[in-house]
């Protein structure tokens, strides 16, 4: 448990976040302000927010833990698993989403394919986000319980109260701007941790030498590329095909909570620059997250659970003040994940379900109110379902796995939708449905198809490939869309020349 100055910092940080979030209420006057920040935010704030939203607190701890267990190969997730995808998103996909004045990714799919594709994609995201909320509430409560000694229910309610209030009132502006603060603090504390950890292990070369002589299981700890028959979950084949080609792109291009941030940019230049700036920041993430995990192998070689590596390093290496600040940033990371889910789900529900199916042509104030009420309802669902996570420890992994199966087919239809005029509504719909079905099939019978324990990278690759082929085959058999209906929705070299004049 924390004590003294560190305890004070965590409390002050939580209260400060609440006040900061509430301050943004004055900038919310319409549904566009609530869901897209009035399309007025600068690239640097959005870029920072994308990085924070991506790494989150659970990933921070998890990646350090994997670096402790498997070594530097986990860094692939932040380098080849993010940077190329973010560049692709910035130059190809984001301009279409931004110019189209879209609020959601399913909205693009609806315009490019049909309403069914939009609804399936949206409902899947809503389900995933709603389930994830309970897990994140529980994780936040456990963190507060361990750090501050608060009872679990008090912890859940205080997290929900703080996050709920500022997301309800401040919308996405509050979500993005609280992320900016968190990123600055996480990076400052993170670099201090890396510097002090290196000092504690006697420098980089000394650490490499010590780890290399610790036993055969540590021999490949410094190999960024792992052989295809490795026991770790990161064989190079999975990294290249599953991660770099499919999951990274699907995440950066098809994830509502990431793309929605870019759509808040004040103009197209800022929208693209936010992704590029985010990718530059992403290059530093492995240094901050992975290195402490590696150094923990030397400082705390006896850890039973690798996920304890980062918290242990923070506690044993950082001085008072920074310990509190880093733990506060962790908690803020969890809050950031929760507020992203709340706002993105409210946007998906209002724009893709409520507006087309329940009440069309209502006033803007009405949709703003619907978005805010949806946020509150989700908050209540998250609080009620959070204890379920404690009964099923594998639920977080299961939800993430479920998401990875959806991403392959989703990326296949997004990719063909942008780059191939000939793809049709029936091609997209069948690819999405059959692709998801195939991913579920592979997961159920994974023991018969794959040799590694957790083949999520391979499953996303094969489901992507099948969805891609199905989309092409069905599109050739069905009636193509008219040129007029595809205007502004498919890639054209004109968009590059138009950009020069921006």
């Amino acid at each position, binding site marked *: 448990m924390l004590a003294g100055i560190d305890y004070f910092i965590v409390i002050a940080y939580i209260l400060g976040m609440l006040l900061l979030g509430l301050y943004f209420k004055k900038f919310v006057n319409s549904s566009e302000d609530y869901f897209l920040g009035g399309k007025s935010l600068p690239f640097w704030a959005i870029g920072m927010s994308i990085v924070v939203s991506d790494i989150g607190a659970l990933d921070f701890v998890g990646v350090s833990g994997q670096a402790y267990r498997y070594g530097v190969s986990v860094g692939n997730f932040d380098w080849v698993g993010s940077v190329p995808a973010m560049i692709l998103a910035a130059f190809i996909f984001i301009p279409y989403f931004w110019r189209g004045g879209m609020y959601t990714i399913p909205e693009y799919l609806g315009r490019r394919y049909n309403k069914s594709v939009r609804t399936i994609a949206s409902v899947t995201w809503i389900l995933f986000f709603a389930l994830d909320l309970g897990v994140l509430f529980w994780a936040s409560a456990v963190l507060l319980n361990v750090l501050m000694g608060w009872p679990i229910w008090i912890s859940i309610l205080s997290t929900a109260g703080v996050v709920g209030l500022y997301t309800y009132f401040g919308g996405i502006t509050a979500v993005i701007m609280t992320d900016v603060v968190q990123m600055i603090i996480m990076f*400052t504390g993170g670099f201090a941790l890396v510097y002090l950890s290196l000092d504690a292990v006697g420098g980089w070369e000394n650490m490499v030498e010590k780890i290399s002589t610790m036993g055969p299981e540590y021999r490949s700890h410094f190999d960024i590329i792992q052989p295809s028959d490795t026991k770790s979950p990161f064989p190079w084949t999975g990294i290249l095909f599953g991660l770099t080609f499919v999951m990274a792109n699907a995440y950066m291009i098809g994830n509502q909570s990431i793309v929605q941030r870019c759509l808040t940019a004040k103009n197209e230049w800022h929208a693209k620059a936010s992704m590029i700036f985010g990718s530059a920041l992403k290059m530093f993430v492995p240094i901050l997250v992975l290195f402490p995990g590696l150094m923990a192998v030397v400082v705390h070689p006896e850890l039973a659970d690798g996920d304890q590596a980062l918290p242990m390093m923070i506690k044993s290496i950082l001085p*008072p003040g920074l310990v509190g*600040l880093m733990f506060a940033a962790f908690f803020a990371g969890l809050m950031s994940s929760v507020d992203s889910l709340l706002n993105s789900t409210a946007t998906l529900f209002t724009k893709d379900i409520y507006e087309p199916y329940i009440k069309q042509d209502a006033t803007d104030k009405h949709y703003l109110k619907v978005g805010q009420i949806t946020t509150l309802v989700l908050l209540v669902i998250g609080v009620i379902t959070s204890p379920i996570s404690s009964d099923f420890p594998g639920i977080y992994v299961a939800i993430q796995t479920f998401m990875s199966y959806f991403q392959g087919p989703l990326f296949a239809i997004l990719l063909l939708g942008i780059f191939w005029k000939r793809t049709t509504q029936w091609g997209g719909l069948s690819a999405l449905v059959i692709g998801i079905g195939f991913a579920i099939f592979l997961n159920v019978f994974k023991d018969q198809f794959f040799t590694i324990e957790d083949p999520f990278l391979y499953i996303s690759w094969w489901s992507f490939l099948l969805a891609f082929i199905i989309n092409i085959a069905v599109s050739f058999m069905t009636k193509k869309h008219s040129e007029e209906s595809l205007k502004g929705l498919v890639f054209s070299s004109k968009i590059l020349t138009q950009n020069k004049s921006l």
Partner: protein
Amino acid sequence: MNEVEIGAKIKNAQINNALGVFIITFGIIVIFAMVYTETFVQQMTDLVAGMVLVIIGGGMIWKSRRTIKKFKKTNEK
């Protein structure tokens, strides 16, 4: 520059000002936490990290206040 653009500039500056206040406050707290450190290296780490936060926060406040002043004057004209 029209009124809407000026309004957006002022809005962003107000947001940055609020962020700056938050960050500078925590920078000062981290510098204050030097009192509780035991070694010289710990002391210096708190000092450097705190100073980084104070400089970032201070810079944001300075820049945003200048922007607010400048655009409010333009608006009045």
